[in-house]
């Protein structure tokens, strides 16, 4: 099991969600964040005050996936979020120790398998 964390452009969120759903990745959490990844700073002016916006609006996705879903998830995000300009974002893949589905008490792989879907036969413990 892995936790895929992606930081992407807000205007690409819908494209990325669409790509993830096409790849059958269904469970995710998103949050609005601010960040800086080397993109050109914007200069804004409010009356006499001129400011350089160091932080840009970004959206962070957090997706807990079973092992065989890691690659499809990464490639869906990378393809849908790319514009080619600086500031497209990053994808981080983190090991996960344990997952619990609160409603049923299911753990680990069963907990990240969508309801109504047979768990994948690949049940090998995650190498951490």
């Amino acid at each position: 099991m892995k936790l895929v964390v992606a930081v992407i452009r807000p205007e690409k969120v819908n494209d990325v969600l669409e790509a993830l759903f096409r790849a059958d990745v269904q469970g995710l959490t998103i949050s609005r964040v601010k960040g800086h990844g080397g993109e050109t700073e914007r200069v804004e002016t409010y009356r006499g005050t001129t400011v350089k916006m160091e932080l840009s609006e970004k959206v962070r996705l957090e997706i807990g996936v079973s092992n065989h879903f890691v690659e499809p998830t990464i490639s869906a995000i990378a393809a849908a979020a790319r514009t080619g300009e600086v500031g497209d974002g990053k994808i981080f893949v983190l090991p996960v120790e344990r997952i619990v589905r609160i409603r049923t008490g299911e753990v680990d792989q069963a907990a990240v398998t969508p309801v109504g879907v047979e768990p994948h036969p690949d049940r090998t413990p995650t190498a951490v």
Partner: protein
Amino acid sequence: MNAADTAWMLLSAALVLLMTPALAFFYGGLVRSKNALNTMMMSVSSLGFVGVAWALLGYSLSFAPGSPAVGGLSWAFLAGVGLDPGPAAATIPHLLFMAYQGTFAIVTAALISGAIVERMRFGPYLAFITLWSLLVYAPVAHWVWGGGFLATLGALDFAGGTVVHVNAGAAALVAAMVLGPRKDYARQAMLPHNVPFTILGAGLLWFGWFGFNGGSALAANKAAALAFVNSFLAPCATLLVWTLLDLARNRKATAVGAATGIVVGLVAITPAAGLVSPASALALGAIAAFPSYFAIVWRARTRLDDSLDVVAAHGLGGLVGALLTGVLAQASWGSPADGLLFGNPRQLLVQLVACLASVAWSGGVTFVLLKAIGALLPLRANPGDEGLGLDVSQHGEEAYTSGEGALLLLREPVALSPRVPVTPAVPSEVRS
């Protein structure tokens, strides 16, 4: 000169002027937050650009003595427009009449912006509405109100159904087609970012509309009272019907629907305001809800990205109002001519001719004007800027900033006076 008339028209002009910032709130709430300022600026800047164009040329082209097609240039730069009454309104200062009519030109040009929000570059937009107010609004206003050919024909337009709403609606249709849909249109849901703004805008529009319709009597008289009451009753009926349609279709009464219903009712009663009975106003408002409601539902499924439904609300609402004026007008309530229902079927035909003339001129000239501006400057923001939002890309501002990550940029420190010492922006030593 009449003091009561002058007082009422002073107030009315201020009320109509308020409609433009009200429209900014109405439209601003309906777009995504990254385009909120750009959308509001499209209305607000009309105050500056169309307002100045009106004083310099627009007023003369609309109301100065001229041909049946357009006014002359004798009142250009406000020459001869003074404090004595002018020919159009015998009891108020000529200058006040000019200002009152100017507020109409400003809001009419701003109405078009709803069709092209979230994608048009701001410079070409300013050029467009300024030239539009001179080349489209001024002639059409002259045709109907300035002694032009539609006035001669006997077209009834109490406060601007043909001149303002059908005119802006036709321009909006053409502008939406020339600009093309937003890049995310029909691919992603683009939801209103602040519905309370839209309700605030609708409320302020209604308030301002009492000056728009009530003031169109150009005097504090019975016609003003009738127009005022009808501008109260018709939107009530439209709002009621709109809510029932919402409930019937979706089992939920929506707030955006209510705000839209109010505006459609106001649009529809505008040409008829001082010409029909209050009972007719209620009927007119109720009937007007149907075409606009279903046009909005239908439009959203087409490729026509008239983003804020200017065509359905103003074009169609104005058309229905103008035609129903030809049906419901009553000489016994002060109309110069009766309508179809009161024994004068010809009036409906005259109303139709007036609407067609307005649609043809407005649509045609808008097309040529946008193509001409587009040949010199790109009309559309590039896809990257559209994705980022027009607030940042066109204005260098955001509607909702937290200030996080904003570094203060200070250029050369400016001394307020030679005796005030210049403090460096960042102290070289930090005192505890």
